[in-house]
């Protein structure tokens, strides 16, 4: 990647390869099977029969090594934050983060007196899409996923937009 970085700007060939690669990436976002708090239940509901995450090619993988996307579904506490960070680091590139729910966006209802709550997961790992809500409805999470897909679609092999 680094060699390509220095050699080319966007050109027509890369753009075509980009399309294929982006399409593959955005249609097969495997998530880390990992739930934190209340939002995890809504995340499970999203992957269950009624809403069916699998329609978008999202399946939970138990191991972070095989996943592309981590959905931070719930309150990140200080004790957990280091684990979340490590989990994120264990994922192979290219990787994406959806922050689901107010707690992981900014601390949510625990922003003021939560002595043990990390006020926003973006203090530890970079976030691609924020989904607001407490907890967000499954539709909201699907919308967040589609926003992420849009973002991936505009990426380029030689330049990661994130």
């Amino acid at each position, binding site marked *: 990647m680094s060699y390509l970085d220095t050699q080319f700007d966007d050109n027509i060939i890369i753009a075509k390869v980009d399309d294929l690669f982006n399409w593959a990436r955005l249609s097969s976002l495997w998530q880390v099977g990992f*739930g934190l708090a209340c939002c995890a239940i809504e995340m499970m509901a999203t992957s269950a029969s009624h809403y069916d995450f699998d329609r978008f090619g999202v399946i939970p993988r138990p191991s972070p090594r095989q996943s592309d996307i981590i959905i931070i579904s719930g309150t990140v506490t200080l004790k957990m934050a280091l684990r979340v960070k490590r989990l994120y680091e264990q994922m192979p590139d290219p990787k994406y983060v959806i922050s689901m729910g107010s707690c992981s966006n900014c601390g949510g*209802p625990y922003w003021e007196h939560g002595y043990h709550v990390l006020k926003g997961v973006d203090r530890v790992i970079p976030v691609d899409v924020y989904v607001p809500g*407490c907890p967000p409805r499954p539709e909201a999470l699907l919308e967040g996923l589609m926003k992420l897909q849009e973002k991936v679609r505009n990426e380029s092999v030689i330049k990661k937009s994130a």
Partner: protein
Amino acid sequence: MAIKTEEMVLNMGPQHPSTHGVLRLELVLEGEIIQKVIPHIGYLHRCFEKHCEAMTYPQVIPYTDRMDYLAAMGNEFGYAITVEKLLGIQLPERVEYIRVIMGELQRIASHLVAIGTYGADIGAMTPFLFAFRDREVILNLFEITCGARMLYNYIWVGGLSHDLHPDFVRLTREFIKYFRPKIVEMNELLSTNRIFIERTANVGVLPLETAINFGITGPMLRGSGFKWDLRRDDTYSVYNKFDFDIPVGEGKVGTVGDCWDRYYVRILEMGESLKIIEQALDQLPEGDVTSAIPKRIKPPVGSVYKRVENPRGELGYFIISNGTTSPFRVKVRAPSFVNLGIMDVLCKNHMVADVIAILGSVDIVLGEVDR
């Protein structure tokens, strides 16, 4: 040269597919046999008790939702009746009935998640998805009542935030009709499955004396064969007006108090909850649900401990009031927190795979364990 053997320490969680959230279990193994289980909790400690001290009494209710997020109605219910006891107010009949209906619907929803995830832990994914499919119907009922799917802020101190939707009674009756065959389906798919029985019968047997000494409550205690249900034994709200059974573990396929018994008690309880809902719908009185809500909640100085039967066991609130508008101290006796303490005893001399089976049958919600 002598062979040196060492115990292996296996770290399960906080990110593990079947620790039901962010629980971390430290397993000390010899081969695959468990020597010791050390649970590490607190990965979801959200400072509930500190928040209570900073909020006014009604403001605490949304935070109670977020403790046992699978049984939010139950949490609100418990908190509301605790504060009402402190205030000493009487409620309109309709409020009590609606609370009972909501509580029981929530119990079914919560047990569905417990059963579904238990199936997934044992390796059967399909019951999990079926359970979530049926839970979706209950969530729709909640949604037409108060607009939220999971965390409702519906049961307030002294009343409810809204009256029932005009369609609610009809839809609930339809749900009952829809759901009865689903319990049978779940039994066929999971409860009587030979492999499922092999995996859960005689595993993690919990004797009654140990259970009581460890403060175990809820379906776990009943699974050990003790007819103890706060809805009957320390009755609250209008539960004394309904006729329902308290299912207990009978050791049908194994020993009394094994994982299968605990699982099956939950299945049976769903049926009992349906009975209660039916009776409550029949008797539902008319009235105003918001009339008794106090304008300003300022309880007298004192302390109160009140408990309700949540899907996971005895949920108790201990509230100390110093006469101001916010509680001086709220301590929650969370059923999952207490039930989880027994993991070490249950898991000893079982295999790694059994830890999953036992943990699933204890049925914890980490939001409540850590608060």
